[in-house]
């Protein structure tokens, strides 16, 4: 590690331009929040049938990706892969930034965001949501300490222990996130413990994809060399995670197809659910799994463009997955009276249409802007990224 030189990004024009652009999205997010808070949620696409909308798609995606962004650091500290050690600080920073962005969206979409202090002080410990609040806070504390130990030379002996603690904590955190849905017995699309491990594998893919995007963007913006060795290794790791996500998705749906009472929801998602069916096959499976796998495992070296394309597809596929998981499950009507056709003034028995409003999209993108702003500023003021990531430097520190 001694041979690796870490350096801040240089503050050229591109830095301020990037910050200004992020600032625009932050402002739009803030505008959406204040408008929704002032008028009430009726101005959004959400209603009493679809109670969680696009803000939750962005929020849960970012929170899941946050845990996965820690992959690179975990691989270095827990599994002792030297090649990833100099890449670990950026991994921890990205994890913190993504979690902050996701939580910002989740909190600002609450009916009473002003009561955040209530959520932080009054707990119902049977609620998986309440446990998640503790898991999120713990994640900030543990990963924050881990990042500090990596950056502060005197504390480096403790960084391995902190890395192991962060690894265990992040697995618990994503188990908690998956269980938010898995523990809902009322909804046929959920009600399975499979959601917890499935979310963990999703997090590996989404987090690593975003890590690669940030790494390539930072190196390109600052003119730092980024060799094929790092890119190849990370991209192949990403490929394995995408294949794992695909596998879990297949098992999840095969299980549901085997259980007669879930045939209805499966038919809805896989065959005749309109936007949800399209997002599942084209978005989650096509753009999220199949195309990236072809891109990643085709012969030839990984160019930055090829990696970026694959990562962007994985992120878009991930957002499609969250849309189907969160909104698709609510669109499908609850079976309150099995064996009966039902209708009511409260839209019983109907597939619930949902059209996201601009406010919700602005709030969701605002969450991404929060994460981006934190990353850009931190990279500018902290020594988080190695000066050189070319193949020769990588080989040198790997042999060290």
């Amino acid at each position, binding site marked *: 590690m001694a041979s690796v030189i870490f350096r801040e990004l240089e503050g050229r024009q591109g830095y301020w331009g990037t910050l200004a652009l992020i600032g625009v999205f932050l402002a739009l997010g803030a505008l959406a929040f204040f408008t929704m808070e002032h008028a009430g949620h009726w101005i959004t696409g959400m209603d009493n049938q679809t109670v969680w909308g696009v803000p939750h798609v962005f929020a849960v995606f970012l929170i899941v990706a946050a845990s996965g962004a820690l992959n690179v650091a975990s691989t270095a500290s827990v599994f002792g892969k030297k090649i990833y050690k100099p890449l670990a600080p950026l991994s921890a920073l990205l994890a913190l930034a993504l979690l902050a962005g996701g939580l910002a969206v989740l909190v600002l979409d609450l009916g009473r965001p002003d*009561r955040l202090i209530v959520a932080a002080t009054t707990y119902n410990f049977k609620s998986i949501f309440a446990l998640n609040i503790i898991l999120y806070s713990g994640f900030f504390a543990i990963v924050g300490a881990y990042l500090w130990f990596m950056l502060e030379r005197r504390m480096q002996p403790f960084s391995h222990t902190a890395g192991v603690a962060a690894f265990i904590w992040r697995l618990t955190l994503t188990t908690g996130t998956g269980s*938010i849905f898995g523990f809902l017995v*009322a909804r046929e699309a959920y009600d399975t413990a499979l959601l917890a491990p499935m979310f963990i594998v999703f997090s590996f893919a989404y987090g690593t994809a975003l890590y690669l995007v940030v790494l390539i963007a930072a190196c390109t913006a600052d003119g730092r060399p980024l060799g094929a060795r790092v890119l190849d290794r990370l991209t192949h790791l990403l490929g394995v995670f995408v294949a794992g996500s695909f596998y879990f998705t297949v098992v999840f749906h095969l299980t549901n197809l085997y259980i007669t009472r879930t045939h209805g929801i499966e038919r809805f998602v896989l065959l005749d659910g309109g936007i949800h069916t399209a997002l599942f096959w084209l978005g989650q499976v096509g753009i999220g799994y199949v195309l990236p796998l072809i891109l990643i495992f085709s012969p030839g070296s990984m160019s930055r463009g090829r990696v970026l394309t694959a990562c962007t597809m994985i992120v878009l596929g991930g957002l499609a997955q969250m849309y189907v998981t969160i909104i698709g499950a609510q669109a499908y009507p609850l079976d*309150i009276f099995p064996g009966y056709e039902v209708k009511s*003034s409260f839209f019983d028995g109907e597939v619930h249409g949902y059209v996201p409003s601009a406010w919700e999209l602005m709030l969701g993108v605002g969450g991404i802007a929060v994460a981006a702003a934190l990353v850009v500023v931190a990279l500018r003021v902290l020594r988080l990224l190695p000066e050189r990531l070319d193949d020769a430097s990588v080989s040198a520190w790997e042999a060290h």
Partner: protein
Amino acid sequence: MNSRRTFLAASAGAIAGVALAPGVRLIELASGRSPEAAASAKNRWGMLVDTTRCMDGCTACVSACATENHLISHGRPRTDAQWIRKVELRDKRSGHAFAAPVMCQHCAEPPCVDVCPTGASFKRADGVVLVDRHICIGCRYCMMACPYKARSFVHEETHDQNPDVPRGKGTVESCTFCVHRIDRGGVPACVEACAKDGGGALVFGDLNDPASEIAKRVAVEPTSAIRADLKLGTAVRYRGI
């Protein structure tokens, strides 16, 4: 001798009576309930919905609920609150059609209470499931968890509230069994309206009191819970489903 013995026995009886009577009276008082007293687990408020008496086209219960709880429509049915709704059912095989009002089922094991992060969703000792509007943060997790779609989120400002039924934008709410009425010895507004203007399909009372009409009827009539497979121990029973 005999008269003296009788006199002593009578006196002892009288003294015992004087000494014990206030205690007996106190026990009697303790088992009753003043408006200030906390809800008691001795009661289990419940409702029987007799679908065979629920009249076609009648929405007396729905209107009464809206009036009682000041659930004012904004002309936006997808976001307007509905604490009780009339569901029209048709058996897919036989074609038999009927209707049933559906509201919060006041489960003994309420999923909404389990998932609520702050404990705003809670169950009273007498089984009534409520939302504490002071600590509800509006996360809507309870709405995701409720198998009966019984809850509504307040999507916009509320005006002209009933002082007994505080509501607030950004929080979740549902049928309270008109808890302000039952605490004063009354019955929910929907039950009263159904008896007056409807078919008398709704019976409300204490399931724990063997002398109550509801306890007597559920003991002899075939009734069932909706989504009984979830084993939530609902306080609302349906006849004719």
